[in-house]
């Protein structure tokens, strides 16, 4: 459908100038970033890299399914699941109270003039800072710290996951509790309810589904973070993957990758189930 030129001037995009300007600015900003990231796609087609990669990927098929390796794989999967589950459980224990402290939705002082506004703001700022500190330090550094206490093994991995994911869950919980419908909580607080009452009867029921699905998503991430846990000898799929990669054993690597794929599908199903029950 072209506008007939006899009727008026040809059609023109009124935002064209702005769009071109934005694109040029973006390109100028992007260039140094591309240089810094050493963005050199042709390196992928370097003959020596291609040969190593072809050998490695060629080994992917068929995946290794010998009884011996499968036994190893099952044990590593159980270990990974146990580390992720225990880590997320502890992270929840850390995150839930901190999120309740950090969320603005439970502030009574914000409703009207009254004492405690400053101290409330100060408390929330301190808690938010603590949450940021917990999640900004990488898992591996926490793991190195806890290895000092618990020695090499899954314990340090569980605690490292608990601390970092506690920080992440706490921040996101607090944001979910603020972004949802906070009117019921406000109504309860205005009617003289305690903060705990408003939290359990107004805020949590409204946000339960979202909270649960984010927690399950984080559990899925924790399963993947087991790769990091291999570094502290926590075992699990990460360590197995690391060994297969170092020996360039494509068949074993593809078996491990298939397990990762299966776990992600399981996490999706679990998330859907929990959301359905909470609906």
């Amino acid at each position, binding site marked *: 459908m072209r506008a007939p030129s006899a009727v008026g001037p040809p059609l023109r995009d009124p935002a064209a100038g702005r769009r071109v300007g934005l694109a040029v600015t973006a390109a100028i900003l992007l260039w140094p970033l591309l240089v810094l990231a050493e963005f050199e796609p042709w390196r992928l087609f370097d003959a020596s890299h291609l040969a190593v990669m072809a050998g490695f990927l060629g080994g992917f098929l068929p995946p290794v399914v010998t009884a011996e390796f499968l036994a190893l794989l099952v044990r590593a999967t159980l270990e990974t699941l146990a580390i992720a589950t225990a880590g997320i459980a502890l992270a929840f224990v850390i995150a839930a109270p901190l999120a309740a402290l950090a969320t603005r939705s439970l502030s009574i002082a914000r409703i009207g003039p009254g004492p405690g506004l400053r101290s409330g703001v100060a408390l929330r700022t301190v808690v938010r800072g603590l949450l940021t500190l917990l999640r900004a330090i990488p898992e591996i550094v926490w793991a190195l710290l806890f290895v000092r206490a618990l020695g090499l093994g899954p314990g340090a991995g569980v605690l490292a996951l608990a601390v970092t994911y506690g920080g992440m869950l706490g921040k996101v919980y607090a944001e979910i509790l603020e972004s949802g419908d906070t009117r019921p909580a406000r109504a309860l607080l205005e009617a003289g309810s305690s903060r705990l009452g408003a939290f359990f009867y107004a805020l949590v029921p409204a946000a339960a589904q979202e909270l649960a699905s984010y927690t399950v998503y984080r559990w899925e991430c924790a399963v993947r973070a087991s790769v990091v846990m291999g570094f502290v000898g926590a075992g699990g799929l990460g360590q197995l993957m690391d060994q297969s990669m170092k020996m360039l054993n494509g068949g074993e690597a593809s078996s491990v990758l298939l397990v990762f794929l299966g776990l992600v599908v399981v996490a999706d199903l679990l998330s859907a*189930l929990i959301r359905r029950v909470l609906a």
Partner: protein
Amino acid sequence: MKRAAAGSTGASLPVRHDRRCVECMALAFGIGAAIVASFAYLAVDWRGLFSSESMRLMGRFTAEFFPPDLSPAFLGRAAWGALQTFAVATIGTLLAVVAGGLLALPAAGRFGTPARVAARFALNALRSVPELVWAAIMVIAAGLGPFAGTLALALHTSGVLGRLYAESLENAPRGPERALRDAGSAPVAAFAYATLPLVTAQGVAYALYRLEMNIRMAAVLGFVGAGGLGQMLYFHLSIFQQAQASTLLMAMLLLVFAVDALSGWARARLAPAYA
């Protein structure tokens, strides 16, 4: 409101409530059992955590991080590493926005069911491989350095963003696009002028969220030799130079703070188009 109030006093509610509670009790029991089983399976001796000996060891490890190395030469290197990490995360996220967006179109069912199933499988496969494993594979494919990290982030994030984009495309109202199509517009133009504006704000918000996460991840990817702050951190930690490691951790913290603040500000300005 009145009808809802009347309904809640009706006889149907307690029955429904009972049935649901059986379900949620079962779920709660299942989750509880999984947690207990996990702790039992790992059989970690947690007492080690609270002994005075381990407290002393952890305290000493923490104390070694202070004071951080603030010599100008090292600060310069840390700043360079932070810039590189920022570049890796940004380029990786941008590539993922493009690839995820392209995969989201078939995944949202726009090219028929077989394409939808295939695209969903590809997205799940991209997403299920952890960034660190992608990085290890990309180090084989592209050699050591930040480029491998960029590709690793791009591959994993494509899977995540593609799935989210496919969901927003499916949730977006179909009316405007159909109206343009019925008026004789070409398919691409109808998509670009009717559906795309509806999902852009949400899509940019998702991308910014992922950028925040990728900054953190890019800092860790260095552990497999993918450049940036992570590589420096791994190097200094492995030779027990905690003072340098502590400077790098602070650089990481600053970078995370800065990007979180920037992206939070940008997200707050993005009102959803249809709200």
